[in-house]
């Protein structure tokens, strides 16, 4: 017994000796001692990873972090509107590829998505100034805006810019037919099978996450549930290239020209696009030309807030003053092109084989081969070169005047009640079987829709003689798969042919199969966080915002996403080379926190 006690004592001594020499994992620092500050982060469970990295960084910077993870966007909005947050994670994708769209909605005091809200006259002035300038001059203004917005005032918390990654089956589809646009939705008409024998028989399967399509009327929504669908169902008078350059490919225009002063825009229309409709479950050519009066009707509809009370995109088109059909060819000869200084007609003629000989407003008289064309002129309220980007947006899709009026004339637009009235593009009705409602001007006509997906057939009247743009695949199926993980599995199992977005963590597994090709490119999708700027919030203090801003290390986000996201400074950064780079600086963060708490003075 004594032996055991002696042994025990010896061990105690040994252990306590070791304990005294034990190292500590806490590092000493030279930071100012500040009071504990609690930061509430609001995030949706889909951005749980971002929220977690943010939490980690803020707590390492000395903040006490409270998480409020909500399951969906509705709860997120509710919590945000109640002001129940300090920082809320969100994101913005500039689908039109122009800077005005990237800043107006989220930073301008009138913006629909200005969540803070940021109410700063200087920000408003800079945004309005940039809108009126040509690209080169605007870059300076937008750089100034970014400096003020982030560096000086820390109104927004940049997290990262996403990369756009899509995957396709390279044994099935040709690489030439796959386009990966930076901003606009995918181009269905360009897809082509490796084996041309498949063209008329095999259904090409695409996928999207949401089955709750908001509407198929271009102007009533601008969201992920319908952008791709609407973008391919309706033709626009201008298009964006993969890199957000303005182009006429697959658009209703042979050519376009900008009049001197950047306030008038001329579009020379094609005569080989017809509306399609659905009859007995198949797409047929109506024989009706997509003509200038349809363009005027559709664009007026898009810009007029009073068209319908569920209008969601009028702010994109409010810069347009007037849309009209040009019938006087002399106007084209007298107005000068803003780029070349030559007559507009020369610019327009460069895009066609047969030069413009006559203009007409009457659809039946149009005959491009004989030199009779239609020209549409758009006049903006002030010089606004970025109008072209907005005209390339899906909300400027061209509809058939009579077909829309057939439904929408039955009620007053401003007292429209979705539960009672049936409007053009009402998705619930389309799903219920009213597929004959839709007359599509784009490459594909919707023939059937249900809760699992939407079936499309190519529009037989869409540029049938044009080898470049006539769709080659006859049948297309948009399958709804709720989450990206399942979509990825479906793609790998061959149930889906093109995967619109690949998770950063799945790239390696998808690429592991030689038959899959993953395309990666930069995009305009920016993940950022807004501060609660409501009265009474501690985030109204610029020093508090800066304390948070300097605690952020974007490298962690890049590392988490396997390098498939990029550092960013603001939503401007993906479009304009501003030269701003965010860097974590815990000493600065600590200094600003001390300033906010009144512990030190400048």
């Amino acid at each position, binding site marked *: 017994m004594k032996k055991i006690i002696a042994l*025990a004592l010896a*061990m105690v001594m040994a252990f306590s000796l*070791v304990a005294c020499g034990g190292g500590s994992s806490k590092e000493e620092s030279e930071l100012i001692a500040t009071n504990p500050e609690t930061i509430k982060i609001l995030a949706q469970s889909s951005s*749980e*990873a971002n929220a977690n990295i943010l939490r980690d960084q803020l707590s390492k910077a000395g903040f006490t972090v409270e*998480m409020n*993870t909500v399951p969906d966007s509705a709860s997120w909005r509710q919590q945000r509107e109640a002001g129940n947050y300090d920082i809320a994670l969100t994101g913005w994708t500039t689908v039109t590829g122009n800077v005005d769209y990237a800043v107006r909605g989220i930073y301008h005091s009138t913006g629909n998505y200005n969540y803070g809200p940021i109410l700063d006259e200087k920000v408003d002035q800079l945004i309005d100034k940039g809108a009126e300038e040509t690209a080169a001059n605007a870059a300076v203004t937008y750089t100034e805006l970014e400096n003020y917005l982030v560096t000086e005032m820390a109104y927004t918390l940049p997290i990262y810019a996403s990369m756009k990654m899509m995957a396709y089956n390279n044994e099935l589809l040709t690489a030439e037919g796959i386009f990966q646009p930076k901003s606009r939705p995918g181009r269905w008409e360009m897809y082509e099978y490796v084996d041309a024998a498949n063209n008329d028989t095999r259904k090409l399967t695409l996928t999207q996450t949401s089955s709750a399509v908001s509407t198929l009327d271009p102007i009533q929504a601008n969201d992920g549930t319908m952008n791709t669908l609407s973008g391919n169902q309706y033709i626009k008078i201008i298009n964006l290239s993969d890199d957000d350059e303005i182009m006429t490919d697959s658009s209703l225009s042979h050519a376009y020209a900008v009049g001197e002063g950047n306030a008038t825009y001329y579009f020379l229309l094609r005569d080989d696009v017809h509306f399609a409709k659905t009859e007995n479950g198949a797409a047929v050519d109506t024989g009706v030309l997509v003509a200038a009066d349809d363009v005027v009707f559709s664009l007026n509809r898009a810009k007029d807030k009073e068209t319908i009370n569920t209008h969601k995109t009028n702010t994109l088109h409010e810069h347009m003053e007037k849309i009209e059909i040009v019938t006087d060819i002399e106007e084209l000869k007298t107005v000068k092109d803003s780029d070349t200084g030559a007559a507009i007609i020369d610019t327009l003629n460069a895009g066609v084989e047969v030069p413009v000989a006559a203009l007409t407003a009457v659809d039946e008289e149009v005959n491009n081969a004989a030199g009779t064309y239609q020209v549409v002129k758009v006049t903006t309220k002030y010089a606004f070169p970025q109008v072209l980007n907005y005209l390339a947006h899906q909300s400027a899709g061209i509809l058939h005047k009579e077909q829309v009026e057939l439904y929408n004339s039955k009620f007053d637009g401003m007292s429209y009640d979705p539960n009672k009235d049936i409007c053009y593009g009402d998705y619930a009705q389309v799903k219920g079987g009213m597929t004959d409602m839709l007359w599509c001007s784009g490459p594909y006509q919707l023939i059937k829709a249900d809760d699992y997906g939407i079936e499309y057939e190519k529009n037989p009247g869409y540029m049938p003689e044009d080898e470049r743009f006539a769709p080659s695949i006859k049948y297309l199926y948009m399958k709804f798969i709720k989450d990206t*993980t399942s979509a990825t599995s479906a793609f790998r199992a061959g149930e889906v042919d093109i995967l619109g977005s690949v998770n950063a963590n799945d790239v390696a597994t998808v690429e592991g199969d030689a038959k899959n090709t993953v395309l990666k490119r930069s995009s305009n999708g920016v993940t950022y966080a807004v501060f609660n700027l409501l009265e009474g919030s501690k985030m109204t203090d610029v020093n508090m915002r800066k304390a948070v801003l300097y605690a952020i290390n974007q490298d962690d986000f890049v590392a*988490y996403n396997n390098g498939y996201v990029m550092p960013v400074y603001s939503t401007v950064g993906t479009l304009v080379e501003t030269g701003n780079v965010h860097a974590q600086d815990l000493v600065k963060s600590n200094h600003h926190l001390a300033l906010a708490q009144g512990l030190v003075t400048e």
Partner: protein
Amino acid sequence: MANTMSKKEALYAKKVANRKLSGSLEFTTSRLGYQVSAALALVFWFFARKGSVMWMGVAAVYTVAALLQYVICKKIVKEVTGEANAVSPATRKLGWLLLPFVFVGDFFLFIAGCMLIKNNKNLEYQLSVYSTLVSIFIIVVSMLNLFKETQASTFWLGIGLYGLYTVLNLVVMQAVRKYTFGKKPDKKFLPYAYISVAGLALGNVFSFLLGIVALGKYYNKNEEVNVEWIDVIRRLFRNYMACIGMFIVIFLLSVSVASNLTFEYAIAIDNNFRVRLAAPSLMYPFGCDDYGRCVFTRIIFGARISLLVGMISTILPCLVGGMLGAIAGYYGGKIDNMIMRCLDVLAAVPGILLAIAIIAALGVSTVNLILSLSIGGISGYARTVRAQVLGVANQEFVEAAKACGAKDGTIIFRHIIPNSLAPVIVRVTMGMGSAVLSTSSLSYLGIGVEAHIPEWGNILKAGSKFLETNPYIAIFPGIAIIIIVLSFNFFGDGLRDALDPKLK
């Protein structure tokens, strides 16, 4: 004819041998010892197939362990079924060889060794073995932190204290050998008994049981009659699988306490992208998840919250449901009808759906999680207790109490409830396993514990994204969940048998 006779004889001999063996603790512990060691050795060889020196080393040690244990087991079989009918002292000495394997994590061999070394094993001895094993195992598991870049500032203090505690356990074991083999424990054992009871503070329930068993025996007035609850524990410890189940649960309970000192919480929740998705190694035994957090440390800290939520959300409905069931069963009639019909409505809603609905309404937090899991369990307990009370309430001793003028409350709480506890205890034990599972399920769905908090369901969820590329992140928490649920079930099964009057 002769052939059939010999066949029958052989069958009979086999039966006798089997009966002798199943009564031998030495045999049951050593058989499971070599089986598990061999199985683990195979798993480790599988890990080592890519030439990892660490895994090869571990696999080799386990192979040796399995072989050694196998040889010893064969010896035991030979001796127990042989003429002597007992294990020889020479074989018992071999038991010492088995003990060191606890340092590579093979506690089966430690138990087998302890059971082999000593010829005479009473309940107290078994309890002190398990109690010692818990403290040694905590040190062994904590020592894995030595391979980390940094240790918790209290690491060595913790190791020191637990080293001391192990020594204390060994001292108690010696005292057990000296003082407890009589009809009742020697008076000199009392201080040791009190020390053992205090072990509960560290989560060491074995030590606690040892203490109260000794005290119970010591203060038992009638030496001719055995204390009933001690008998239950004794019967429980005859079932080796139940012991293993108990050991694992109690070990996790104790390590939840110990991790406060010997584990660094920061490693479990701070992101460290340098080691993102790191493969298992000595530094990160279970690898790292997609945020570079050590999965092993997360599982250790996860035990705390899983057990806490599991236990509270089982005991809470047990108390409420038990009370309601007792009242319903005792009074009967309208009261019974009212209570039970209300609970039937509750029972008609699937538990997990009810939990999801409650959390959706109240928000995500640990308290709400406990609440939502508890409410769904009430009706089950009420039903069990009511059925039991209905049976007990008509018995003579209740009649007698009534005749003596005892109040209803006294009758319910003094006479009826104690006599209807057995099935409830079993239900609680089994229920804890499923409560841990429910907690993990809800966390997996993202509505349990906050995502960054180490909880087994959360860890599993983080791993599920990488099943194809980095399966270990999901496999280890998955195994942890399986093991704890199995442990509770084995324990519950053993308890049911021990409490069953027919199996006395």
